[in-house]
């Protein structure tokens, strides 16, 4: 097919390291940095993206049709796609997989993505076992009916949670399916030694001829990033899954040979400071704007060795709907002070800034703290474990300000709506929710719903505009102070081949396992 | 006795000094002596006179870092010991000079088996194979008449009684047939019967191997029985030297005469007061003990149930009147100390103990403190019963402090006076227990017990470590206090001579029970129980002319006081054989 690299060689094995454990390889559950792209290689969904880009393309589906009202999606499935156990995948499997992921017993963290499918509420409430909106038309056709037009639906069909699983294997392993994953993907699981090693093996029956290139991928688990880099330098591994550790960044960049193997790319990521809009004094928009103007983003980026670009709006630059024209709040201490004075805080005030405790987040928080101090805001830092920060954010009276780093939004799929719902919309502004600024603008919620009902691909640009407007309005109310969009810097061994964008794939993080190859096989 | 004139050890002008906090002082001054092959030389003398220091100096084992040889030479044959380095000295120690230390309890390594400790020195100095060394060790144990020598090799020191430990020490010292054996108070810690055995053993061995022995002791009875020659020391100097018979018959030095005069003799009149009538009728006893039982539970099983018991004291009854001294005698392990401890409130007991009209059980805190003031105890082991980190002056002042007696200056004065009374100088108040000799420590303990002027003093072997002169002094002091304040004593001792000297009444204990009790005269002049008789016979006589050919020996092992649950020991019935002389039926 079109996407296969003509230079690619077949065969070879690579080694990749990760610090944290791989929790599960069940597509309905896995939601981590490490397992996200592994699952993508073991399973397939109806939709996918072109390697290294954010462009949607059909995957298990051969083609799809959208009804004019945008509420019915019909997918034609590819023939002859086989699960790793040899059975052919059919429309029944698609339906089963979606029933499964939305069933509360599965306890999937991604169930909410399917909220627009008819019958979702019944399933979620435990009143029904299957989604009434998903019907098997014939073994190779599956039809989705939605309760409202949903422009993101094709993206939803590409995220891991909608990947297709074989019923018999799920039932065989029950809750342990995540340890014995069986999918249709380019690789199949060959070995899993808990806490040590996961080995993927090429799926010889993969429907996409010519893929994958590699015979074997070994993931070594539990290694400190700094040690992983040492091993890379010694040629023992091929890709450090956690990237280049900050402490080694300068050293790597100073060495031309190593620098040549560094790949840089954008990410669907924004780092921001939330301000609790229900909590004085942040209930005053002027205060929030003042904070936006007080931050010296260039300095903050300097601290992380320039591995980011300044952000002025919630969406990252590579996201459709990013408003290039938007200038954002300038760095202007005097004006920020003036605004504070206008808001009735000429001498500033005391507050707290929460941040996650892993490097470099406490450092960034300290830089922010110093910037705030310059306009009189004395923020004390609470540097806590991830779960504690999340808990504080989900408590209405919990955290006045949170630096999002380490827990921040990395988009589930490349669509502007993905930055709104749970983190800026009213739906997320509930106890235990993820809208940490507790910003709830009914108006904008309505506008967002409107934008998401523009399903027609032809109107995509128009829809993006609508989203830009929404985010501009958000920035007017300034519940966040966007700080930067992190750039990904990764490294590979000299033998690794494939286009650079495969190594900073916006969707397959850290790399697109299916498409990379090694140069040293004959 | 072989009498080769050959000299084996020569000490010339030996000076040992110890460094204190503020400069050093000499504890052995200008000591010169010679030891001939096969000879037994006794060093006797005042406690603290430098006897142990001399012995340690010969071994080059003076306590570090305090003491050192400041002058003089020690020749073993032609070898000058003080000039030897540690490595070469090592070959001398154990092989040519062996030593038995004053404290048998602490001188054996608690974590090594007897066998290991015996064979290792054999292996260190000979080229014997392990099996041969083991054989030699067994022989050595047999030589000191330890039963079941082979199985003993696997035992550990704490599994042996005090007497056996001392015999192991001797076996260890003699295994290599050294030229010189130094025995520092080898019998002080032992009761009479065991003491007799040990001394006899030493003599036997010496005759067999021709070993030269330096025997340090303050017991003139032992000196008389063992020594060929005697050296009398005082204040670090030798005051007299001579043949044993000469010294006993014609002491030259004033101090020697004092020493000999002070020796308590059994059955002799020296210092023996007229036996007072037991004041049985006096209603107000100081202490009344009725049917005292002390049992130590030995636990076992999953739930830690008691499976066996040590019947340390089984139904002992006695009473002590004011002004009276009751002596408690008996073999090691018969329950003397335990009885004393019960009386002092240190072990749980059943039965009744009434002190000064108050029953000890069920007293409130303050009452108990008051009773404590009335009953004081002097412990068997003087070193162990003094807090090694306190100055002795503070230790003696402590009872006064606790009971809120006297102001600070008065306390100091009283302590100084007490020191004076027990024969210590008030300068020594500033020293720590380890800076004293064994006997000096015991005097500190006595001073401490006297501080509160109690109504009853329990003295557990409290004069056995003292040299006779001080012993006499202390005994006099005790009597003096009795006269002045009407103090009563429970006097525990294995030294029958001393007992005869001081006691009004005597109780003989065996296996936790009293087998004979009566006035001193009744018990000593007319011992009825065979066990009592044996005890009296075993006492060494301080007269070289009257050396017995053989010590009476206890052949069998002491029966155990440990029994299974439910197996109570047979209770002995005491019958009165006249005038309150109680004797148990034999059985």
């Amino acid at each position, binding site marked *: 097919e079109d996407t296969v690299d003509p230079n690619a060689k077949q065969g070879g094995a690579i080694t990749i390291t990760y610090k944290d454990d791989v929790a*599960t390889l069940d597509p309905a559950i896995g939601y981590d940095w490490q397992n996200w792209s592994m699952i993508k290689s073991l399973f397939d969904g109806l939709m996918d993206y072109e390697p290294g880009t954010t462009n949607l393309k059909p995957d298990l589906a051969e083609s799809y049709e959208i009804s004019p009202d945008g509420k019915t999606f019909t997918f034609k499935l590819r023939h002859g796609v086989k699960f790793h156990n040899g059975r052919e995948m059919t429309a029944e499997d698609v339906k089963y997989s979606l029933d499964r992921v939305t069933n509360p017993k599965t306890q999937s963290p991604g169930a*909410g993505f399917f909220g627009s499918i008819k019958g979702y509420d019944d399933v979620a409430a435990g009143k029904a076992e299957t989604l009434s909106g998903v019907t098997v038309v014939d073994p190779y056709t599956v039809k989705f009916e939605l309760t409202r037009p949903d422009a993101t639906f094709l993206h939803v069909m590409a995220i891991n949670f909608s990947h297709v699983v074989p019923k018999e294997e799920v039932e065989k392993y029950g809750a342990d399916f995540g340890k014995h994953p069986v999918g249709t993907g380019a690789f199949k699981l060959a070995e899993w030694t808990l806490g040590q090693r996961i080995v993927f093996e090429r799926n010889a029956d993969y429907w996409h001829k010519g893929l994958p290139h590699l015979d074997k991928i070994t993931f070594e688990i539990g290694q400190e990033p700094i*040690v992983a880099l040492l091993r890379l330098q010694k040629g023992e591994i091929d890709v450090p899954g956690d990237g280049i550790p900050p402490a080694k960044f300068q050293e790597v960049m100073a060495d031309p040979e190593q620098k040549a193997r560094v790949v840089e790319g954008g990410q669907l990521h924004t780092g921001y400071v939330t301000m609790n809009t229900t909590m004085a004094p942040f209930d005053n928009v002027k205060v929030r704007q003042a904070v936006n103007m007080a931050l010296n983003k260039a300095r903050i980026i300097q601290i992380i060795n320039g591995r980011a670009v300044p952000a002025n709006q919630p969406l990252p630059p590579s996201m459709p709907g990013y408003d290039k024209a938007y200038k954002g709040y300038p760095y202007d201490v005097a004006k920020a002070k003036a605004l504070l004075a206008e808001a009735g805080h000429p001498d500033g005030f005391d507050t707290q800034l929460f941040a996650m405790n892993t490097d470099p987040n406490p450092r960034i928080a300290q830089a922010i703290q110093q910037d705030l101090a310059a306009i009189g805001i004395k923020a004390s830092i609470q540097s806590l474990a991830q779960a504690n920060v999340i808990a504080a954010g989900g408590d209405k009276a919990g955290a006045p300000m949170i630096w999002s780093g380490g827990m921040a939004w990395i988009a589930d799929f490349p669509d502007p709506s993905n930055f709104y719902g749970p983190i800026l919309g009213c739906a997320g502004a509930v106890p235990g929710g993820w809208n940490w600024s507790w910003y709830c603008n009914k108006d904008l919620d309505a506008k967002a719903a409107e934008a998401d009902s523009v399903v027609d691909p032809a109107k995509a640009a128009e829809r993006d505009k609508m989203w830009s407007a929404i985010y501009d309005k958000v920035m007017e109310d300034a519940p966040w102070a966007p700080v930067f969009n992190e750039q990904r810097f990764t490294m590979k061994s000299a033998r690794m081949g494939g286009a650079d964008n495969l190594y900073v794939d916006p969707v397959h993080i850290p790399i697109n396992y299916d498409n990379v190859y090694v140069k040293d096989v004959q | 006795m072989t009498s080769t004139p050959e000299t084996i050890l020569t000490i010339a002008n030996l000076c040992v000094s110890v460094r204190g906090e503020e400069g050093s002082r000499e504890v052995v001054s200008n000591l010169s002596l010679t030891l001939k092959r096969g000879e037994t030389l006794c060093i006797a003398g005042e406690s603290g006179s430098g006897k142990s220091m001399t012995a340690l100096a010969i071994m080059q084992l003076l306590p570090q870092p305090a003491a050192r040889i400041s002058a003089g030479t020690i020749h073993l044959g032609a070898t000058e010991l003080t000039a030897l380095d540690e490595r070469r000295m090592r070959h*001398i120690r154990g092989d040519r000079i062996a030593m038995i*230390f004053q404290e048998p309890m602490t*001188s*054996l390594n608690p974590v090594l088996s007897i066998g290991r400790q015996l064979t290792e020195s054999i292996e260190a100095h000979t080229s014997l194979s392990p099996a041969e060394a083991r054989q030699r060790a067994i022989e050595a144990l047999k030589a000191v008449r330890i039963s079941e020598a082979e199985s003993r090799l696997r035992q550990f020191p704490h599994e042996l009684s005090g007497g056996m430990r001392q015999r192991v020490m001797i076996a260890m010292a003699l295994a290599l047939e050294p030229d010189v054996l130094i025995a520092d108070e080898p019998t002080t810690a032992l009761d009479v019967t065991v003491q007799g055995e040990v001394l006899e053993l030493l003599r036997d061995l010496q005759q067999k191997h021709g070993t030269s022995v330096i025997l340090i002791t303050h017991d003139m009875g032992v000196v008389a029985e063992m020594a060929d020659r005697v050296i009398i020391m005082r204040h670090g100097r030798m005051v007299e030297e001579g043949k044993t018979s000469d010294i006993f018959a014609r002491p030259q030095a004033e101090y020697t005469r004092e020493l000999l005069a002070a020796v308590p003799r059994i059955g002799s009149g020296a210092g023996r007061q007229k036996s007072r009538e037991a004041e049985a009728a006096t209603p107000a006893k100081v202490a009344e003990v009725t049917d005292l039982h002390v049992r130590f539970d030995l636990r076992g099983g999953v739930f830690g149930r008691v499976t066996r018991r040590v019947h340390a004291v089984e139904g002992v009854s006695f009473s002590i009147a004011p002004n009276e001294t009751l002596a408690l005698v008996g073999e090691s392990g018969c329950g003397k100390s335990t009885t004393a401890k019960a009386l002092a409130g240190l072990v749980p007991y059943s039965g009744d103990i009434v002190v000064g009209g108050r029953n000890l059980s069920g007293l409130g805190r303050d009452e108990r403190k008051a009773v404590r003031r009335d009953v004081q105890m002097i412990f068997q082991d003087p070193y162990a019963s003094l807090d090694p980190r306190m100055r002795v002056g503070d230790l003696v002042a402590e009872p006064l402090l606790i009971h809120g007696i006297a102001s600070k200056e008065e306390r100091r004065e009283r302590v100084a006076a007490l020191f004076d009374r027990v024969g210590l100088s008030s300068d020594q108040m500033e020293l720590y227990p380890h800076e004293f000799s064994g006997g000096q420590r015991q005097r500190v303990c006595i001073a401490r017990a006297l501080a509160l002027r109690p109504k009853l003093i329990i003295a557990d072997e409290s004069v056995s470590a003292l040299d006779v002169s001080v012993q006499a002094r202390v005994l006099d002091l005790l009597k003096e206090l009795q006269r002045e304040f009407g103090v009563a004593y429970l006097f525990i001792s294995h030294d029958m001579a001393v007992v005869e000297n001081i006691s009004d009444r005597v109780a003989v204990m065996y296996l936790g029970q009293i087998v004979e009790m009566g006035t001193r005269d009744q018990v000593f002049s007319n011992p009825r129980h065979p066990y009592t008789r044996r005890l009296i016979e075993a006492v060494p006589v301080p007269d070289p002319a009257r050396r017995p050919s053989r010590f009476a020996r206890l052949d069998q092992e002491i029966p155990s006081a440990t029994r299974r649950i439910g197996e109570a020991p047979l209770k002995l019935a005491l019958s009165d054989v006249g005038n309150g002389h109680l004797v148990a039926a034999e059985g």
Partner: protein
Amino acid sequence: MIAYLGRRLIQSLLILLGVSLITFALLYLLPADPVRQIAGRSATPQTVENIRQQLGLDQPFVVQYWHYLTKLVSGDLGRSYIQRSEVTELIVSRLPASLLLMVGAILCELLIGLSMGLIAAVKRGTATDQTLMVASFIGVSAPQFVVGLLLLYVFAVRLSWFPIGGYGTWRHLVLPSLTMGILGAGWYARMMRSSMIDVLRQDYVRTARAKGLARGAIIFRHALPNAILPVVAMIGIDIGIFMGGIVVVESVFGWPGIGQLAWQAIQRVDIPIIMGVTLVSAFAIVLGNLLADIIAPFIDPRIKLR
């Protein structure tokens, strides 16, 4: 002996029960809501409640604890909230590595620490003594992460004597054990020196000298066994300290032990794993104490198992 063990085991079980109760209670009181984490960012309140019910987290504390205990009896530690695997399986798969590391580390610290302490005590007051004590303090004061990386850098990267992290052969074990051991060695060296100095003044050492024994025999046969007793009592304590350091060392050396599991669980409040690891480490500590008590009579025959 058997009886003693039985009694001690009952006591140990009670301690474990206490540990489980306290841990469970503390985790119950923790403000972070596990259900929210399971349900994900886009979950509706309804879904959240549903999951809460499924996990029984809506039950009162006592009921929850009782459920936990009853499952515990059959060896079931529940399922991880985040990893979704059986906690028992997770722990069992990682335990051997941690145990191996523990054995290696304890061997290292004993070997290094005891010999340092011994030499220091024998050479008391000399330059050797002082150097050794400074070294032991460096061991105690040096951050383990740095020590680990330094060892890795020198011996694995530069000299290639050992592999750069990983698990499998004895060569993998050396550096992590050493890293853990250096800290412990500092402690043991200090303790050993202190107790050795005490022992060297005892009468029986004088006796041994009087027998003319060689210096080595005096030190190793007579003094060492006596001095080592307080050190043995340290074993239980040591396992506790070990549990603290294991996280760092395991992650530096990519050692697949329970330390990493625990650390990740703590960061994400994965309660079943925290409970499981807590119980396992408590068990190890209790066992360590027991072991110390059992060894003691072999070293010092005066000590009776009571």
